[in-house]
């Protein structure tokens, strides 16, 4: 992006902030925002298609191969190993994105309650979001927030980017 002169760092981080807060995959949201800022609706459409099309083709080829080989024990073992490795990856990504939140109350409490509600109480996601979302936003309601470094609590602060950010 920088090389093409499409966007400065400020624009990139602004897009990141919106992408993080809204529902949806961050990479897709980023593509929409950058495309829209550069070329409007058409730009957004083209950049989302560009982001999703190559992976879609590959995943469908794999999916069709899987359909015809799903009983093969080697395929099963291979995919199980991938899932196990993915757990390590997801743990690292979650820790990295939440590195600020995992260090401070009340964020740790919100993380723990959300996790318990979904994974152990098995509450439906919409209920968890409708419950925890407003509570957590209320904890950070405007009039009690002391003046802080502008972006201290954001998952993506205005600092160095980490290599895991694509997830």
């Amino acid at each position, binding site marked *: 992006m920088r090389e093409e002169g499409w966007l400065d760092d400020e624009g990139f981080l602004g897009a990141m902030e*919106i992408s*993080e*807060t*809204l*529902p*949806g*995959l961050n*990479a*897709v949201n980023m593509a929409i*925002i950058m495309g*829209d800022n550069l070329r409007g609706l058409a730009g*957004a459409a083209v950049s*989302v298609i560009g982001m999703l099309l190559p*992976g*879609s083709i590959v*995943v469908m080829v794999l*999916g069709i191969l*899987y*359909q015809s080989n*799903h009983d093969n024990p080697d395929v*099963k*073992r*291979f*995919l*199980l*190993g*991938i*899932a*196990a490795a*993915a757990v*390590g*990856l*997801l743990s*690292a*990504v*979650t820790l990295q994105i*939440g590195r600020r*939140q995992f260090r401070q109350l009340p*964020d*740790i409490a919100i*993380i*723990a309650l*959300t*996790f318990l509600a*979904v994974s152990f109480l098995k509450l439906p*996601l*919409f209920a*968890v*979001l409708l419950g925890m*979302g407003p509570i*957590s*936003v*209320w904890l*950070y*309601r*405007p009039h009690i927030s002391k003046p802080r470094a502008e972006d201290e*609590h954001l*998952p993506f602060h205005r600092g160095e980017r980490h290599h*895991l950010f694509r*997830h």
Partner: protein
Amino acid sequence: MTRLIHLFLVFSLLSVLAVGGGTAVLPEMQHMTVHTFHWLTDAQFRNIYSLGQVAPGPNMLMVLVIGYKLAGWAGMVVVGIGFFLPDCIITLFVNRWWVHLGGWPWRTSIQRGLAPVAIGLMTSGTYAIARLSIINVQTLAIGVVVFAILLWRHVNPGVLVLVGGAVYLLLR
């Protein structure tokens, strides 16, 4: 036809609820596809998730395979539109609106407040995949080693995950 409608409704609901990204909706996706609608078994859900890890681009593209498995090419299209389009529309509107919210103090509150919720949901997503895949000492070791390597230095996660699969295959 009923199945296509169900697929569309389920995946567009997941799309709108995906605060925190794809990982955050994995438990709900697993619950709906495996337990509510009995479309997949836990093992099939896990295997299709793994396919997404191998493909380039967002790994949640694996939802296309779920659609294809359940209702052929039409299923793939319906799930793709359902899962990606609502978020794209929301993001497009909010992006155009965002600058106008600059002086609104709640904007920061919403960002700060939703962040820990999103991370809690991502933790649940990670746990859901762990429940399906960490089934013995070898799989546990693969997960732990990948985690340690990624904390230690930058390695392409796609390559690492492929190596994880290959190692487990060779460990028999």
